[in-house]
């Protein structure tokens, strides 16, 4: 028989005024296994704790029940006290006789009776408690950053600066992401490439950073501190170790009509290409969909001109497997499809463009060399209309239900830059609201209006009609004037909604990280843990978590890096010992538990069992990784055979409580 000690706290008068604490201690003291039962004014005080510690030692207690305030308040205090007296901290149970008894009842007899019952339930439970030891697991001191945009770059640089190796996996042939495509950045109007490309170079030169460009995540297994990731290195048909990035092949390639994705298809590139001049790594890649040699074996020109013999038409996808302690998702965003809003005629006219296309049209390295020209006829546009909120703030059937957050500011930027460079151009912006919270942001858009004379019209555009003379008839509303107006525009710019990368969902599945209905990664807590996924060891950087601009992205990226560094600095991770465990003798191998586990903590393997008749039998059984399990218990109920149980809240413990309370 176990020896249990009971300690009833008065909490000054908080408990003692409504509960007859002496009676409680006395009654519980008569319970069969209770060898000591005491009451004390403040059990959490040092002397109260000493009373507990002394009793544990003096009576050789196997478990203790504290009748006091909520376990959410002092469970840890009493566990520590128990531990210091040599009792396993998980042999402590709390009966909550303050919040759930003395504070809510007035009748002393009633409250006392209830307190006794709660105490009995706690005794019933503690009799079935088992000593638990929090498991420890090691930490692989290497981080993986998925996505090489500004978010991924910043996170990687910060982690590398702290001295930890970090790998960047980027699906494009170069890092840089969307920011590399931008012309200027708000609210300072500094050149995007000028501030980004040095960081890209830093990445390439930092010896702690390894860049896997033109690569994708193939699979992820493991758990916090110890992930194993398989990376697919797509064949680029150019030997990375040999290519010097001289660009000769890209000049000689005879296939000239490949839509240039870096310029959003506004001009063409060759079948062998380097995305842009400052690409990192600056290594060519061959586009297998267009290359004549790869398609029908005829050509081979690039191979002939390459002086270092880097071209390799036989290259195949290869795989790298690496272990990481932490993984950062930095998968960024895409521009949502605006062609579904046919009234804006995006598909009908080349002169209706998205804002990102406009960035390229204004960029000195873009298809027009930085001179703003209409895509249809290459002429200067004189009247430009901007349409805000295209696809944002819609009901879910009509588009994105969220505000894309960056459009108000970049539109003000575009309008301002255009008016500055081409003062003869009239610029109109149709807006629903102008949303500019942020340092120097509101001042920025006011400048667009006040100093640069941009016409802001509160209203919407209903229809854009291409006319035979090449102009666009923009029919809109001006809600303040209460009129419908027509503007004959040369160029229309749509502030398209942004959406998470299409690759994010499959990645989230691999990471067992949760996502919201819009495919943004969910944070562990929206306010207090904004850069972590609820899945331990997975961190979030940049727009993959929600729309944000560059300053915010960089801030979050660094915050994310701090969290990663915090994790990688630890040698051992201590787990919560109240985790699920599966009795493999009873496990059916049905996978129900794995199906409900939100953390991917459960894996299966075939295991041999010796049968009573000395034969062996192979069965598929579940195993819970205690380092990953968070102890919710969903699996215990999903398990049909009862093989799965939860330490600290086992079936028998809970049923003992039920029995005690229903008696």
């Amino acid at each position, binding site marked *: 028989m176990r020896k249990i000690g009971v300690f009833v706290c008065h909490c000054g008068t908080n408990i003692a005024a409504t509960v007859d604490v002496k009676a409680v201690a006395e009654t519980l003291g008569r319970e069969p296994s209770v060898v000591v039962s005491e009451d004390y004014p403040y059990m959490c005080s040092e002397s109260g704790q000493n009373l507990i510690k002394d009793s544990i030692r003096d009576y050789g207690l196997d478990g203790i029940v504290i009748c006091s305030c909520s376990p959410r308040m002092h469970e840890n205090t009493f566990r520590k006290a128990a531990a210091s007296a040599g009792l396993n901290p998980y042999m402590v149970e709390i009966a909550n006789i303050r919040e759930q008894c003395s504070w809510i009842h007035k009748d002393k007899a009633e409250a006392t009776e209830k307190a006794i019952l709660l105490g009995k339930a706690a005794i019933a439970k503690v009799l079935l408690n088992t000593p638990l030891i929090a498991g420890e697991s090691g930490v692989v001191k290497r981080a993986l950053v998925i996505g090489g945009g500004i978010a991924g770059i910043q996170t990687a640089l910060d982690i590398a600066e702290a001295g930890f190796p970090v790998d960047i996996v980027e699906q494009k042939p170069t890092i840089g992401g969307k920011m590399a495509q931008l012309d200027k950045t708000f609210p300072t109007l500094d050149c995007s490439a000028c501030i980004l490309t040095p960081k890209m170079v830093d990445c390439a030169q930092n010896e702690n950073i390894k860049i896997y460009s033109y690569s994708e995540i193939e699979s992820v297994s493991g758990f916090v501190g110890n992930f194993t990731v398989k990376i697919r290195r797509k064949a680029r048909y150019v030997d990375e170790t040999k290519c010097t990035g001289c660009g000769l092949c890209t000049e000689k390639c005879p296939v000239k009509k490949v839509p240039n994705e870096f310029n959003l298809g506004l001009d063409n590139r060759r079948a062998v290409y380097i995305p842009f001049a400052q690409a990192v790594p600056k290594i060519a890649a061959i586009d297998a969909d267009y290359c004549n040699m790869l398609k029908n074996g005829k050509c081979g020109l690039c191979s002939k001109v390459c002086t270092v013999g880097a071209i390799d038409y036989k290259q195949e996808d290869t795989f790298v497997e690496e272990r990481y302690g932490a993984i950062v998702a930095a998968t960024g965003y895409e521009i949502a499809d605006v062609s579904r809003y046919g*009234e804006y005629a995006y598909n009908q006219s080349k002169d209706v463009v998205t804002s990102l296309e406009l960035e390229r049209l204004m960029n000195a390295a873009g298809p027009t060399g930085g001179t703003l020209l209409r895509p249809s006829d290459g002429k200067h546009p004189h009247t430009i209309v901007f349409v805000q*909120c295209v696809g944002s*703030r*819609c*009901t879910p*059937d*009509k*588009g994105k239900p969220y505000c894309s957050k960056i459009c108000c500011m970049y539109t003000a930027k575009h309008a301002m830059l255009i008016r500055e460079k081409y003062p003869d151009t009239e610029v109109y912006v149709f807006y*629903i609201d102008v949303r500019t919270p942020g340092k120097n942001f509101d001042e920025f858009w006011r400048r667009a209006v006040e100093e640069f004379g941009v016409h802001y019209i*509160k*209203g*919407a*555009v*209903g*229809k854009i009609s291409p006319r035979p003379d090449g102009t666009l008839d923009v*029919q*809109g*509303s001006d*809600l303040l004037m*209460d009129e*419908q107006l027509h503007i004959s525009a040369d160029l229309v710019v749509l502030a398209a909604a942004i959406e998470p990368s299409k690759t994010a969902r499959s990645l989230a599945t691999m990471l067992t990280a949760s996502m919201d209905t819009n495919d943004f990664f969910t944070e562990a807590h929206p306010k207090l843990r904004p850069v972590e996924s609820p899945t331990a060891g997975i961190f979030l950087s940049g727009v993959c978590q929600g729309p944000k601009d560059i300053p915010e992205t960089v801030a979050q990226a660094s915050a994310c890096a701090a969290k990663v560094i915090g994790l990688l600095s630890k040698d051992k991770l201590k787990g919560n010992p109240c985790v699920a465990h599966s009795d493999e003798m009873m496990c059916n191998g049905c996978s129900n538990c794995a199906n409900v586990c939100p953390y991917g903590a459960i894996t299966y393997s075939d295991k041999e069992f010796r049968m009573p008749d000395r034969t062996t039998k192979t069965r598929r059984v579940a195993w819970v990784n205690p380092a990953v399990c968070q102890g919710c218990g969903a699996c215990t109920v999903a398990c049909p055979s009862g093989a799965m149980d939860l330490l600290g809240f086992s079936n028998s413990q809970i049923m003992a409580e039920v029995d005690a309370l229903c008696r």
Partner: protein
Amino acid sequence: MNDLKDRVVRMSGSRVERCMRCGKCSATCPSYEDMEYHPHEFVYLVERGDVEKLLASESIYKCLTCFACVERCPRGVEPAKVVEAVRLIAVREQGKNRLKPDDLPALTDADLPGQALATALRKYAK
């Protein structure tokens, strides 16, 4: 609190409270110029419960029910259905038929299709 508003909302099935006041309905409306109250104002006034103003306005007879606003509204508010509900409340009142069968001969010519008469009666009379 407001019977008329409730009726309009019930008849139209429109979720006026979803409106974010972007004005796209009014940007799209072909009858805009001929209206005193425009589609977005219909939605707003109904949401505010000011249906009487709309009932008294000629605007209710100007909507073509072309459904462009319904199609393009980013919030699924369906302004044309709001206009239609207000108009029906107006014409259903005793003696408030906008168009009477007796008016028709004067408005008709030899080419006018029967469809126009049927539609107009359905829209303007009870």
